């Protein structure tokens, strides 16, 4: 099976985020990491290849720093990588990002495309589904298990409130992967060495520009959310805080 994994670099979970001067975006002088569900998507692709053979290709879009995500994926075992490189990719909406990916892979023939179920930055939860629509492929979202079947694949979809559902699908297909579908591996030293010699293709913004349209949604303003609740902040040494909390639990909330 030939599998493409769409990955994204996002701000590190505990990175202190600050607004830029215009209040349109965050200041970019922070640490980044791979979007967590995408790491699970990569892991699942590697496992499928180990079972059924084939190739795992990783793709991302973003400025030069985003190459780190691809390097790590190659070190973990991906065969090759595609980097849509440029600052222009950062502000694309989900529709345009999907269009850029579709344009970059138009000469390839994958059996499966995996994405994480959503990103930790924009949180659209849309790019994968739109990419499937652009390619004319069937898709399924929030996937927790993938098996090969006679006619294609059988996947386990997570539904809400603890429910699941099996779905039979033909190939090629696109799946958005849920965190926790598997256990992530670490890159080995040998893997890191080998990654240096693996192919990494760069695609510039100009090369896919013709496939893109105007962004159909625009962030007018980014800001720190207004509080809807009055929050009481407790301070002091731990022992004192514990006393204050217990007083609250007993006399205000009356739960103990």
């Amino acid at each position, binding site marked *: 099976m030939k599998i493409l994994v769409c990955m994204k670099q996002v701000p590190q979970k505990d990175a202190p985020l600050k607004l830029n001067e215009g209040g349109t975006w965050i200041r970019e002088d922070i640490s980044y990491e791979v979007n967590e569900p995408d790491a699970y998507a990569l892991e699942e692709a590697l496992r499928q290849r180990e079972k059924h053979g084939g190739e795992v290709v990783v793709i991302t879009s973003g400025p030069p720093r985003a190459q780190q995500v691809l390097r790590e994926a190659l070190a973990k075992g991906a065969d090759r990588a595609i980097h849509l490189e440029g600052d222009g990719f950062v502000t694309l909406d989900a529709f345009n990002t999907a269009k850029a990916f579709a344009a970059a892979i138009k000469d390839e023939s994958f059996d499966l495309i995996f994405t994480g179920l959503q990103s930790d930055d924009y949180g659209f939860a849309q790019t994968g589904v739109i990419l499937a629509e652009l390619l004319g492929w069937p898709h399924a979202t929030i996937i927790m298990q993938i098996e090969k079947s006679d006619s294609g694949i059988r996947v386990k979809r997570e539904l809400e409130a603890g429910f699941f559902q099996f779905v039979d699908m033909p190939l090629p297909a696109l799946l958005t992967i849920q*965190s926790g579908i598997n256990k992530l591996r670490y890159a080995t030293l040998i893997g890191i060495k080998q990654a240096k010699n693996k192919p990494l293709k760069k695609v510039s913004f100009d090369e896919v520009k013709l496939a893109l349209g105007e962004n159909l949604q625009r962030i007018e303003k980014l800001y720190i959310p207004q509080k809807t609740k009055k929050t009481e902040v407790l301070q002091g040494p731990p022992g004192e805080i514990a006393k204050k909390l*217990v007083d609250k639990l007993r006399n205000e909330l009356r739960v103990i």
Partner: protein
Amino acid sequence: MADTILVVVEQREGKLNRVSWETITGAQAIAAETGWTLEAAVVGSSVGDIAKEIAATKVSKVYDLESAKLEPYTPDGFVAALKPFIEQKQPKLVLMPHTYQVRDFAPKLAAALNRTLISDAVGYKYEGGNLRFTRQMFQGKFAADVSFVGDPPYFATFQNGAFRGDQVAHGDAAAPVETVNLDVADGVVRNKPEAPFKEAKQAVDLTQAAIIVAVGRGIKEQKNIELAQQLAEVLGGEIAASRPICDSGWLPMDRQVGSSGQTVAPKLYLALGISGAIQHVVGMKGARTIIAVNKDAEAPIFEIADVAVVGNLFDIVPPLIEEVKKTKGA
């Protein structure tokens, strides 16, 4: 033709998903401010009863979009049903709840119509004739006001809890229901879903707990769960967790609170080392009182907390356990 808002309510296996009431409440508020007409649609097979249920609310009209090929739900089937309907009706705005089912088909529907979807909005603003939707970004650390570019129809989904379902306005008389029999061609639906099931019998019903002590990534290691467990025990509450903790197997999946776990509304929700990612918050923001302990003063959990303790949970929890014991023993 007057501008119209179309709410697509959610049904699963022939039952109305109650989160649809919230979407109608939000749509009614937008309709009141903009003067746009409000209509609703339900998509499925033999879902006329749901259409009638919706017709009792203050909407101008309800469409019952019917085809045998719409049960069970598939993204192909729903897009095949809704795309021509929306092309013909040309609503200005299409609103839906941000559920797992809607996430599965709405981006495809909008893209098939060459339009965009503002997903997971928590509110809207209508100023100077401009409609904007507010959505959370960077896991709730920031909010963004987002506007549509280009021509309608515009698509948006509302986060669970963005509006109060119990505040939905009812009409003086039932709205007319129009049944539309759709022709979904053979071969359009490619996925073959089986019946939904639960993994194992859920041993814990967190929805009934009055006190919940919940742990997040800040608990650091599996062995530290014990500390939170002790606190839950002395408080007479249940222990729960955010998704990463259950993914790691540190607590069983039936202890998970959030969009993929249980939705709870206890008297007290004590969040230990939980950052407050959206997927977790939607499952617990209905708690009467939220006490959050987190060493990161910027953590989004503090946005919704009633009581904030900025500090290391490993410093706070041990004396807290002792104090509770002392007080309860007294």
